[in-house]
């Protein structure tokens, strides 16, 4: 019954300190990766969801949670990963979007509801995170990680990344 001294808010607060291993200036809570915290008399269950099926950071994220809970003397916990409902970039909170922008990553658009539109060409303008210019072009659908695409700004002549909307 050691675990009961923590409320789920306490756990959420601890998890909010766990950084995203691929974009360390944002946290796994801000990214919408943590879906739920369930406290029972048996243990604490942390439910997470992967951003992409092939996200190579999945293990790092688990290790980060593991470490954070143990730092707080919590031993009796499980981390479960669920696929449903699938992660969407709409779950990234406003504060995190702002942080992404400050670090030169244009935040994602809202996910389009029109299925066909999302299949062929999402032509929405991506604003340059540095100079706000609308004169930008996509140079590649894939950037340094699965979740980002590459763009170039004709305003300030700088390449930048855009967090893809999925």
């Amino acid at each position, binding site marked *: 019954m050691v675990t009961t001294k923590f409320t789920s808010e306490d756990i959420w607060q601890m998890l909010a300190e766990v950084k995203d291993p691929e974009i360390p200036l944002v946290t796994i809570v801000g990214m919408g990766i943590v879906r739920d915290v369930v406290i029972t008399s048996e243990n604490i269950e942390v439910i997470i969801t*992967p951003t*992409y*099926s*092939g*996200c*190579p950071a999945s293990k790092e994220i688990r290790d980060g949670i593991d470490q954070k809970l143990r730092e707080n003397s919590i031993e009796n916990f499980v981390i479960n990963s*669920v*696929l*449903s*409902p*699938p*992660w*969407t970039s709409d779950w990234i909170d406003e504060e995190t979007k702002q942080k992404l922008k400050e670090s030169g990553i244009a935040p994602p658009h809202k996910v389009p509801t029109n299925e066909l539109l*999302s*299949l*062929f*060409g*999402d032509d929405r303008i991506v604003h340059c995170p540095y100079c706000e210019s609308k004169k930008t072009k996509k*140079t*590649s*659908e*894939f*950037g*340094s*990680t*699965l979740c980002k695409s*590459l763009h170039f700004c004709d305003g300030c002549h700088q390449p930048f990344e855009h967090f*893809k909307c*999925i």
Partner: protein
Amino acid sequence: MKLEDLDISAKEALFEYLLFLGDSNLVLGHRLSEWCGHGPMLEEDIALANLALDCVGQSANFLKLAGEIEGKDRNEDHLAYLRDAIDFRNATITELPRGDFGFTIMRQFLVATYLYIIFKELRNSSFDDLKSIAQKSIKEVKYHIRHSSEWVLRLGDGTEESHKRIQKSLNELWRYTNELFVQMPQDQVLIEKNIIFDMDSSKKQWLEIIEQVLKEATLITPESNEYLYHNGREGKHTEYLGHMLAEMQTLPRSHPGAVW
């Protein structure tokens, strides 16, 4: 519907079907990964490696579920690394050598569009875990279609040389596409339970998207009577798969139980 709701025949059929999806993605992913460090330019090198990651990640989800359904204590790594070619159920088109960049891109376009159509239907599967993987994977496969179709347009409607080469790739690949829509006898059990869906209308939907892009790319859709009879789902493969697996599986085979 969950694992405990399946009878033995449904379990066997679903295991086979999940191997088909898992193996196809794994083999395709491995072929894509062969481009790492060899891409025609840096952006494309990165893009192909990213596509590979998605495919391998999706494969891991399918194979993990396959292992659970089989109930013989085999996990996704076990299924990926410790089976021989004859036990693989991937579609033949995925195992063909990567060819030139146009060949790889055309294959990605044809297969990603197929997976998109399949996932779209499996989003409504009565089997919860399959439904979840399909809902997740469809978001990713859309990017694959978008990326590969843009290149099909560029190469098809590009220079004389690029047009000639990508048309040749299309003609070669086309012969392996009918196989994607061939149903296995055991699929019937799953179709009756709404776990998977009849593929009758799938080919039409697939063709619609494919033809739309090919036309815009000034490419000619090959005649439909040039299909090869080949079915990876029966464990019948080209000689290429064995060679690929020899390389892919060498580490876990020579160092059993190795971990990072």
